């Protein structure tokens, strides 16, 4: 059974949501996963009527489970995800709520923003500049040494293994990001740089893979090291490699000064972004030094 089964897809009848459904349907087929569709914020109607209003192709009707709720959409999506034990939520960055805004559209609609902030499972976002390219063949996962990036790589590897994707891992060294666990933070001592960095980069990857099966990790085909501003460097790599999917760890907060890299990616990339948040680290203590005093 897939780790991403079942898949929850909120729909509001918009074109953006329909793209999400096509992507989710492809994923469900490849992963042998069940699709749970969520229609929310409107009075319930008979299922077939609801599916018609949501522009769900008839060939999918027999393969989906429909949930209707008059709760707020974000609440409904999270409730369904919790209830069905979702492995993945798929949604577009901007549904109607965002597209209805006057002036410049929001990067993320408020429903999507609330779902990605509230979901404990990975959320696949189709950004506003999304261009459909199915089937997926490649994925890219940035690592930073932070727990959420490690969690993202774990998810990327598992998904890559299940979908037979080749995975590119990239680490961007940025002085501004030091202290966050990457090579910039780790490299306090480097006795012989040529030895140290090959090993450290490998260790950065392997540590992120500590929850993975060894064979899952075989989908990783290359590990890249870049320097400079993280968002700029990642966008450059995405432009070069044109991955089908980018898997990103994040802190689960979209407030003004946070998630700057993610915001830049959402604005610029045309492939789906899989957002992953980390679970709290398990208890661990090494009783040394001051712990004895």
């Amino acid at each position, binding site marked *: 059974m897939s780790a991403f089964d079942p898949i929850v897809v909120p729909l509001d009848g918009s074109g953006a949501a329909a793209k999400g459904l096509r992507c989710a349907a492809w994923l469900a087929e490849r992963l042998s996963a069940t699709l749970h569709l969520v229609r929310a914020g409107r009075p319930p109607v008979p299922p077939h009527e609801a599916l018609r209003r949501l522009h769900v192709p008839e060939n999918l009707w027999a393969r989906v489970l429909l949930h209707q709720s008059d709760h707020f959409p974000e609440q409904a999506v999270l409730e369904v995800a919790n209830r069905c034990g979702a492995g993945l939520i798929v949604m577009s960055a901007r549904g109607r709520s965002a597209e209805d805004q006057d002036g410049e559209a929001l990067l993320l609609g408020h429903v999507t923003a609330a779902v990605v902030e509230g979901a404990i499972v990975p959320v696949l976002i189709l950004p506003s500049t999304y261009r459909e390219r199915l089937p997926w063949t490649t994925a890219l996962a940035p690592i930073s040494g932070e*727990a959420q990036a*490690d969690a993202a790589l774990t998810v990327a590897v598992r998904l890559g293994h299940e979908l037979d994707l080749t995975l590119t*891992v990239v680490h961007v*060294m940025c*002085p501004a990001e*030091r*202290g966050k*666990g990457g090579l*910039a933070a*780790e*490299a*306090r*001592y*480097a*006795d*012989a*740089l*040529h*030895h*140290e*960095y*090959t*090993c*450290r*980069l*490998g*260790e*950065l*990857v*392997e*540590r*992120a*893979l*500590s*929850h993975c*099966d*060894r064979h899952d*990790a*075989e989908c*990783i*085909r*290359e*590990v*890249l*090291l*870049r*320097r400079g501003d993280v968002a700029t460097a990642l966008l450059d790599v995405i432009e070069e490699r044109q991955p089908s999917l980018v898997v990103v760890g994040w802190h689960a907060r979209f407030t003004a000064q946070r998630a700057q890299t993610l915001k830049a990616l959402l604005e610029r990339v045309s492939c789906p972004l899989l957002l992953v948040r980390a679970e709290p*680290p*398990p*208890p*661990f*203590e*090494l*009783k*040394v*030094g*001051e*712990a*004895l*005093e």
Partner: protein
Amino acid sequence: MASAGPRPRTAFDAVIFDMDGVLTKTARVHANAWKELFDDVLRRRAERESEPFRPFDAGRDYLAYVDGKPREDGVRSFLRSRGIEVPEGGPDDPDDAETVRAFAKRKDRLFRRHLEAEGVDVFGSTVALIEALRAADVAVGIVTSSRNGRDILARTGTDVLFDARIDGIDAAERGLRGKPDPDAFLACAAGLGVTAARSIVVEDAAAGIAAARKGGFGLAVGVDRGSNRAALELQGAHVVVGDLGELDVAALDREFTAEQERRTWRIEQEGFDPAKEHGVESLFTVGNGYLGVRGGLDTPLALSQGDLRIAGVYDRRQPPRPYSGSGAAADTGGEDADYSDFVSFPFPFRVQVSVEETPLSLQQEEWRTHRRVLEMKDAVLHAETTYECEPGLVVRTRSRRCASLDDLHLLLQEVIVQLDNSPAVVEVDGSLTEPDLALQHPHLVAHSSGDADPAIEVQRFTTRASGIETCIAQRFTLAGSGEDRTRWRVSAGIGEMLTFRRYVAVFTSRDVAAVESAAVEAVRGQSWDGFEAALEAHAARWQQVWARADIAVAGRPGAQQALRFLGYHLSIAADRDPRVSVGARTLSGSGYQGHVFWDVEMFMLPFYVHSAPDVARCLLQYRHHTLDGARRRAQALGQRGACYAWESTTTGDDVTPRVAAVTGSGAAIPLFTGTQQIHVTADVAYAIWRYWEATRDEEFMRGPGAEILAETARFWAGRVAADAGTYHIRDVMGPDEYHHGVNDNAYTNWMARFNLEQAAATSDWLRARHPQAWEALTARIGLEEGEPGEWSAIARRLYVPSPNEDGIIEQFAGFFGLEEYPLKQEQQLEEPLNRLFDLEKINGMKLLKQADVLMLPFLFPQSFERRILAANYAYYEPLTDHRSSLSPGVHAALAARLGLKEEAQRYWEQSLMLDLSDTMSNSALGVHPASMGATWQALVFHVLGVHFIDGRPLVEPGAPDRLPDGWRSVVLELLWRGRAHRVEVAT
């Protein structure tokens, strides 16, 4: 409240008591209330489900599941043990609701009713102990999970005895987790103004003892009022008494002090985080110099690096794993490619335990507690793990392992499986077969075994390019079965201990011709009756090691522990094989491909010289064994004599990469270390002199020592360039690797001069004192009569930068004219890989990676007057970004010498804790032995200022003032010319 009174007259600062069962006689009241509640719940359930009614056992169930825990936790814990799940419920649940909250409320009501009916009394012996502690100015606290705690204390009039109290109400208000989490004890300690490490916890509940151990309390005293001793001990109680009348303040002090001493012999890990596992594996390496096994779990994680490494087994580099990140193409460029990479072998302690067909692993979610302890005194790694496979099925595993120091080819392991509360079928697979050999150990080709003995599992490998054969043979048994096999299936009862034992033998074709028969016979020759004796023989060897290697520090247990960690790792890094030396990360990791640098000669050797000179001798013999490689290298450089490679393995040929192509960066960066760090040649000569000074080992000096000195001097004689009557050494790199292609590097020139002088002096000595040896040497290496005189002449005229008018020695010609590099704090933190990318830019700046000029007063403290040392330290220290793990130790040494106590302590502690704190997160690649050696030297030769006069060590008069804060004394032994000398410094 914080303790503001006088310092206690004990080694500990505080004692924190549990209430129920320790202070008050309320445990029985609680047990009765729980029984009344649960019997009612169970009876109703039995009737409803038509099941037999199994009542709550007020003895066993009380102790195992509810004792000491907050009420809700007790409800959950006991019901889970019976496979019963109920909703959490809410505060307004009706009395008859079947929810955790409703049950907890009912229990409280029942407890109060029993309390009113039965009353409450206190243990007089506990009160007497508390009063004695208070009289000794020890702070006293009390912790209870009971929400009735404050009422009971007031009712018994004991509330006035405590300086701080945490009860169930406090815990709820402050969001503290209940026992076995340590929150309440830690909060109480904070309230007393003391640290956990300097406090004692007294508990009667197993969960409370577990909390005390998790919290890192200095001593956990268990009180067994009847039939709970085993559970208390299992959770780690240091002392168990039947009543506190058995202890007084002096006894507590003795126990605390003894436990504190034991803790300094231990590295303990509590909990488990897979992301930290590779680093922990390095720290918990067991080894004996012949081999090392990283501290992987008994059931390793999928990506564990718990490999076996054998000194001297190298092979050609294999293509890196696609996901390893080690795609940096390194051009080894040497003739030694077949021996350029350190080989890893499959983990030899692998065990898979399954219970009722559920494989137990820390990678799964079934584990509840995990603790690993490296006992450094006898070099045994212990592990304890608790799993809850399914509701009510608790399994404990315990293991211990070691790499025998008594028989270097032998590994020993014991694994105990115990079912806590339910019988089950246990399967144990002890096969050592590595399922992913090609992926995990790409250097190895496996061969089938020729031995048909089914009792012995044999694995035979050959390295792909170097052709080294290795055999790993094992016997694995269930103790008492009388049978050896690797797979077991056993029906085990509650509490039954299944003890599995393993002997592993490892031999390579570097040791014997017939590896398989050697390994097979080695395990066949072991008897299971002799297992404990084999462990004892191993421990006895370690006792001998520590008799020489231990440094005893009073006053700072953290520093004491770290010094023992240092002594442990240096002791398992090397043995007595003259064909091998210690790689940059020892046998504890893959870092630096096991390559040998200058680390041994300049940083580690003094530790061995003064604690195990026979090991030091062998490490120097490695340089003799690889002299031909150094000769080939000199020849390749167009020189005579011998030039040691900056990085070498077993042949001495150069395996230093010439180019670093950092993966995916597009950068191919030229590396100059291999061609320019020729100072390593003089470093070897310096080490020989140092060994000779300490041992007067004439046999060594007549043979290998003199030959190395002569051949290295020959190299320098050709390498120097004459210019207007002065000799210069050009186009080199000193210890500071940020500057390449420099001329007249002060360190290189000084060391070369020293090499030439020692070679000339040794030649004179040999000719005068051992003419036959002299003749043999001259014949062997074609040494001409006039060469030693020529070395002396060159040494006299070799340019070595002198201090300028400010007392500063220029690092190399033109250094003073380089661009200033104002090293701001944020730039100090900038990643050093940028230094690699910005090689040429940095080359033109006054920025140092590590001590260069300052290495000289570190190595030759008597040669530098204080003014010169101070001037150079003041000049170079601010220009150094300390990117080498060797830098803090050297700077600590010199700061100590200059009386810069705070700075010395900061650097020294950085160096001391380099691996244990893993602040740079790279100990996963293996520990840093050279940094350990630098730390040792900084303490011994600079903080203590030990120097040798008239055949014995003397301590500098200022040493007591230089001791780090909190140190009361330091005691060590140093070997000097065949005698052990005790050195003791006290404040």
